């Protein structure tokens, strides 16, 4: 599974804040970013993911919290 998700991200080459559907796969039901042990991403991709999610939240494309 971990190998798979990293390939999945490599497929997209770069994680973009506008790809909301991709980002949603890495959020838990509360809208929190999943930890690395759950996402299986490389350290660099996990950082890129966190950056992208935060940008998407600011642009109101993703929620900050889901209650």
């Amino acid at each position, binding site marked *: 599974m971990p190998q798979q998700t990293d*390939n*999945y991200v*490599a*497929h*997209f*080459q*770069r994680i*973009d*804040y*506008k*790809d909301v559907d991709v980002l949603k796969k890495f959020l838990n039901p509360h809208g929190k970013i999943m930890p690395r042990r759950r996402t299986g991403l490389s350290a660099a991709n996990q950082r890129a993911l966190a950056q992208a999610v935060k*940008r998407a*939240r*600011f*642009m*109101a*494309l*993703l*929620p*900050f919290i889901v209650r």
Partner: protein
Amino acid sequence: MAEKSQTAEVLTQANSEKRPVYEVGFHILPTVGDEGVAGVVDQIRSALGNAEIISEQVPEKKRLAYTVERSLTGKREKYDEAYFGFTKFALERESIPAFEEALRSNKNVLRFLLIETVREDISTTPRRAVFASDRLEGETIQKPKAVAEEPAGEVSEAELDKSIDALVQE
């Protein structure tokens, strides 16, 4: 003179390739309506000045993930939807603050996000997944085809006895 202008052209071309690439994503107020969106996009483009526009997305109406509030002229405004679009461009670093100021002062822009990025379009040209082994590259692993078994020939009892005897003797 002509030579000079030519060299100047070459220089500007070289500069345009060196210029950093940015992407601005923005929300346009829903109150401008479908017709007004193009006008606001034109304002944003004119604020870019001599920037080289690499790609653009026409703003489309989106429901926001949360209610965005802002207070202009002492009145609080709430928005649940907006027109979201983005523009990718190359521009000198020195011109960026002026561009940001222009966007900030544009009342029809609810919110914007300016980021530095790369020239290549990343969303439309997916890179192949990289595999550790060349063997897997570009090929899906096929299930080995079942080899049709040869129908077992009829064996007479005498023959069977013979072969059993041979085994026993050994």
